[in-house]
């Protein structure tokens, strides 16, 4: 029974997406409760799966009972189990938020479609995490492309359409270059299953080295566009700034991270260290990540729109994750995995709290935040916690991820990378701290009304509070997840 859990999880999401149109449109609350129950159910089963896999090793699921080189195979290892639990858990929190978000995001008539698209996206996200087949991953990638683009364009504003058009174009270039890479790999190996491709590449890569490096380039560029790794980030700020807040949170903290997981799979499961070291992939990735960390922060300083600023900040944070991966060591990978989770929590908290502020106050610019903390103490409190986490203040999860990244850099004998990490943290201070300070201080004290606290719908407030508590918990007790991440990172067979 436990072996069937991956496919059952995915089918539950698919069933939810298909049942939503059948439920009555007038009583929309039933749909919301139904969706929440499904999410809670899948979260429970993901928990079970995580504990089962931590004890007994990976779950392998072969479709139709065919041998894995003949058919399609799912392989849920420890990393996949952690990331799937993270995806489902964080989506649940954002889902609670979106239940309260009535006017800013999506029109009333579009609610049903929004949730259909959300659940299909979850289906595909779980699929791309679980799958052990390169072409199957491409199919899920395309489902994710269409759904993410349409949960942006569902807002029906002028600028949203232009942003989603740009997003869909770049996303498609990414998908097609991934497909070209898969075709090249298929040409030289004859398999699409990751395990067999990897075995085959280990024996033939010296024979067809030019083909292999071109395939590697296509695959990394394809995933890089989708994960907004630095030189390919141009779609991200527009898309994030114009999307509904809950969609921005989903995109930035979940979808992009899942593509990073695909990148990890490609590098360490398909190509393996021999090939990568021969082509100096590590050095290239380190340079790309370091440039991304600095440039993302510099762009973010120049922005006036808060959501756009958060988008550029995401680019710099993705640089941290890629740098962790580029160390090519167990420590580096575990720091990258930890930062995936911690940045997911922090960015979701930032986007959602900004979403509450836009919902209540209709302000979008950085300089309009003055004195907001007196009217919305909880929202701004969570915003402050998350922003401090971005900067890397102790007691937040952001500090732990930066610390482990620094340790990994030292371990990799690349101490100068610490300077870049610190510099990027300082740049973060420049754009986050003024917002926090101006929201807690007022230049004109006479407008101060101590009892004028804005009422915020409870689902929005609950989700933001959960995220704030999460950031602090993982900051104070990092070993809750750090141990299992180290265990997951060590499974990749480092030399």
């Amino acid at each position, binding site marked *: 029974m436990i072996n069937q859990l991956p496919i059952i999880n995915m089918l539950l999401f698919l069933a939810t997406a298909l049942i939503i149109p059948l439920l009555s449109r007038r009583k929309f609350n039933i749909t919301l409760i139904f969706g929440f129950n499904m999410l809670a159910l899948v979260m429970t089963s993901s928990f079970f799966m995580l504990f089962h896999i931590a004890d007994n090793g990976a779950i392998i699921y072969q479709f139709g009972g065919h041998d894995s080189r003949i058919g399609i195979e799912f392989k849920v290892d420890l990393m996949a189990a952690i990331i799937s639990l993270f995806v489902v858990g964080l989506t649940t929190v954002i889902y609670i938020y979106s239940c309260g978000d009535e006017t800013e995001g999506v029109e009333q008539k579009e609610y049903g479609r929004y949730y259909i698209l959300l659940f299909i996206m979850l289906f595909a996200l779980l699929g791309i995490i679980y799958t052990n087949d390169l*072409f199957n991953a*491409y199919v899920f990638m*395309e489902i994710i492309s269409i759904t993410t683009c349409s949960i942006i364009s569902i807002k029906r504003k002028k*600028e949203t*359409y232009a942003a989603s*058009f740009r997003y*869909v174009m770049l996303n*498609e270039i990414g998908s*097609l270059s991934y497909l*070209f890479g898969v075709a090249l790999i298929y040409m030289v190996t004859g398999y699409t299953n990751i395990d067999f491709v990897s075995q085959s590449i280990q024996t033939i890569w010296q024979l067809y080295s030019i083909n292999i490096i071109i395939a590697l380039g296509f695959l990394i560029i394809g995933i890089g566009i989708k994960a907004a790794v630095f030189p390919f980030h141009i779609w991200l700020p527009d898309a994030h700034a114009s999307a509904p807040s809950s969609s921005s949170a989903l995109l930035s903290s979940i979808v992009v991270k899942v593509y990073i997981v695909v990148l990890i799979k490609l590098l360490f499961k398909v190509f393996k260290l021999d090939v990568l070291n021969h082509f100096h992939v590590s050095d290239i990735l380190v340079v790309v990540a370091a440039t991304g960390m600095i440039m993302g922060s510099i762009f973010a300083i120049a922005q006036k729109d808060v959501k756009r600023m958060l988008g550029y900040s995401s680019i710099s944070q993705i640089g941290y994750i890629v740098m962790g991966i580029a160390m090519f060591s167990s420590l580096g990978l575990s720091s990258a995995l930890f930062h995936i989770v911690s940045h997911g929590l922090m960015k979701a908290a930032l986007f959602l709290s900004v979403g509450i502020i836009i919902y209540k106050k209709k302000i979008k610019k950085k300089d309009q935040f003055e004195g907001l903390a007196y009217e919305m103490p909880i929202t701004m409190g969570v915003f402050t916690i998350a922003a401090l986490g971005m900067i890397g203040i102790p007691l937040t999860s952001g500090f732990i991820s930066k610390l482990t990244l620094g340790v990994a850099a030292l371990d990799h004998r690349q101490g100068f990378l610490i300077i870049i990490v610190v510099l990027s943290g300082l740049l973060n201070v420049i754009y986050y701290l003024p917002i926090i300070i101006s929201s807690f201080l007022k230049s004109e004290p006479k407008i101060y009304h101590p009892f004028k606290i804005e009422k915020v719908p409870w689902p929005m407030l609950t989700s933001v509070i959960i995220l704030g508590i999460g950031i602090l918990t993982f900051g104070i007790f990092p070993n809750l997840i750090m141990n299992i991440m180290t265990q997951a990172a060590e499974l990749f067979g480092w030399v």
Partner: protein
Amino acid sequence: MQIIQVFVDNINFIGAVALFLIGLRTVVTKKNLIKRIMGLNIMGTSIFLFLVAIGNVTGGVPPILSGEEGVTYINPIPSVLILTGIVVVVSITVYSLSLTVKIYEMYGTINQDELTNLIREDDLHD
């Protein structure tokens, strides 16, 4: 002579690469949104051409059981991958066309440059 032979043997790959780059250039440089969508389709088609070339066997027969002895079937797997790929590219094309319809309705243009200017003006008004 040998070089020419290599070129002739891999003419499918060269064609696929040329088409891929033509499509990519169309998507990146053209200002008309419809032309960009066409560029995407060209890119997709180039990959399908490449997959057909991988699967083909000279003198082979289509992969349907023929009952005769000693025939060589072509490789059926790339055909399956292409079937899946075509449908996916069609869906993406339709979605981007619908976005184009909407952009034309909202801004009255499908030229990227004019669009960028209009968006910038809107930003200044905010």
